[in-house]
């Protein structure tokens, strides 16, 4: 069974369609990147995936069951879209443990997972006794990504995870995502503006433009330079 199935998904604001995807399937264990210019509908899609907004039409199914109005997917999904996904009056450790608890993990299990992210987190996040609200934007981003991944989800949804990260952290998280995807077969859906990051790790890249899927590429069969050319043309 496909991990995610989308049928006639539409999101309309006023007269304008922000998202219009007639049909799309995402296979289990795939690492799918969503690229597109600002306003292409990437975040809207991810918000619909997480049932944070209501679709105008159509539906999204995770493991065969509709996402809208249901809860089953929450058990298997880790996500981080923006700061609204952080409980900012907790310290990062407290947030990780708390998130772990919600997913039924004990402290030891969370600690084991956190060890994997030790390099990514660096020494400015854990053990500093700072609340999340007092962290820099980059460190908040790191805390959000780790909290989404530390629970070992079957489906991971991240919106612009490379934003605000320093170059080293961008490389580390790329490797961590790739490793987790290969080792555990986590299905990943990641949006980004940065093509370089996605082309390096994704087994599939979906190009969105004005809410529509304009390219659906499967490297290495498909040449991802095509996406680059597309944006160059748009820029001209």
């Amino acid at each position, binding site marked *: 069974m496909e991990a995610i199935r989308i049928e006639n998904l539409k999101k309309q604001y006023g007269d304008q369609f922000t998202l219009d995807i007639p049909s799309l399937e995402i296979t289990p264990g795939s690492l799918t990147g969503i690229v597109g210019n600002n306003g292409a509908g990437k975040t809207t899609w991810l918000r619909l995936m*997480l049932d*944070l907004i209501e679709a105008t039409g159509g539906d999204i199914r995770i493991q065969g069951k509709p996402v809208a109005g249901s809860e089953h997917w929450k058990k298997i999904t880790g996500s981080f879209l923006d700061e609204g*996904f*952080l409980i900012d*009056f907790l310290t990062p450790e407290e947030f990780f443990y*708390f998130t772990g608890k*919600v997913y039924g993990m004990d402290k030891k299990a969370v600690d084991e997972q956190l060890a994997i992210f030790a390099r990514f987190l660096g020494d400015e996040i854990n053990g500093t006794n700072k*609340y999340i609200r007092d962290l820099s934007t980059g460190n908040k981003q790191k805390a959000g990504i780790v909290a989404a991944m530390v629970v070992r989800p079957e489906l991971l949804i991240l919106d612009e995870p490379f934003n605000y990260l320093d170059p080293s952290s961008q490389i580390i998280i790329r490797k961590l995502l790739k490793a987790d995807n290969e080792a555990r077969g986590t299905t990943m859906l990641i949006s980004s503006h940065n093509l370089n990051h996605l082309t390096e790790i994704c087994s599939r890249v979906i190009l969105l433009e004005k809410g529509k899927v304009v390219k659906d590429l499967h490297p290495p069969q498909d040449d991802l330079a095509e996406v680059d050319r597309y944006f160059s043309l748009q820029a001209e």
Partner: protein
Amino acid sequence: MKMLLRHTWLGFRRSHYFERSMGLKLLMLIVGFFIAGYLLLFGLFLPLILANVFPDRPPHESFFSLLWLIYAGDLMLRLFMQKPPKQLVQAYMGLPVKRRMLARFILVRSWFSLYNYYLFLILVPFYLRTLLPISGAAFWYALLGSFLLAGINHSIVMWIKTRPGGQAKNLLFLLPLAAIMVLLGALYPEKLMDASRQLGLAFTSGDTLAFIIPAAIVISLQALTSRGLQRAFYEWQGEESLYIHTGTGRLDRFFGRFPEYGLYWELEWQLLTRNRRASGVLKQIPFTIIGIPLLFYFMGDEDITTYTYLFVLIAGGHGFNYLQYAYSWESRYFDWIATRQIDMHKFIRAKYYFHTGLGFLQLLPLLLILAFVNPTVIWLMAGMFFYVTGPIFAFLLNAGVKNSTRIDPNKRASFNMEGTSGTLFLTILVSMLSVIAVMIVAFFLPFSSPVNVFIVTTITGILFMIFHRSWIRTIALRFTKQKYNLLSKYREK
């Protein structure tokens, strides 16, 4: 300054509160007119009342004797209710806008607070009837003097509430002052009243010194506030808060250990202790435990009905205050809640147990002190505790769900103020009005007051407690249905 004014206006004009809730605004207007009319009439008839109570003295002199009490009460009211104006600061910090200018702007805005003018609804008709017939100058001088006294209270409150370091800590500054006032009032009431009368008379006679001293106090406090505000800007930007340590977290862990609800209680406790606004509400608990018995000590036990109304505000303890903003606290991280395995039914239930428990812990020492101060009110207080933690808590939790502006993840604010003041007004109004129904039912019971009120409030409260799972389930369901409405509308804009 012009730019700040324009931004303030735009912020007000474009707030969701301005765009929505026409019905609520209309209701607020009607109630506002009602209260204003009530105060005006009170001011008109006050000379007659005072002439009856103190026949040997002109009404204005009797009134001046009570000035200290009126302004002490006004100060207490302001300390709990008056808020500094909400001002966007951080966005201007990176711009060539002087901190001093921003601070001054906030101070100027603060003078528009209704708390500075509500007393004039009584004072103007009162002075019109008592002073104007004596002399026009006396009327104007008295108004000016009264404005300066209001200005002192205003300046004290602004100074306390804008200083860096947290409101509760700053309130401690006032404790010795309050203790001296209470002591003076208890030991030398005559002298205090006489001094107060002299001050009033000095105002009416246009004594320059009587105006200069309060004006100097106001100016000094305003200067202090301006300096405090400028320092507070750093704190608001988080520079100082970077060094706040989270403490041992023993209580967090204690709450976390409870089966089933531990997860939610731990979070609720952390929210309560780490969100500045929420912790401010929590830190009022010791003040209420001391302040309420003092109030009952001075009030005596003649007017049981007044007590009943007062109890609505205090019997639920911290929870009555806190739950008026239910779910606003979660606004910032509501996306997290919405995408995790959070059972809304259990989430709200945990909230209800937590605040009922906390209210009970607040009630116990209060009852113990009241046993010595005013035993008559103990039973009423206990009955009202059940009433407030029962139907009133249910109402507050439900009102939060009905408020479509309560959750606003786009705000990026630790606490979403949007729509809270309107709902706050409505919830307090309905809570107070509900006491009328209690009184009516109590009236038909074959028991004398206050036993009848105790019976009605206790039974109603206990019934709500017994059936709490049922009404909380309804609220949770409504919350889930409201989710899209709560989450999407701001994004759609």
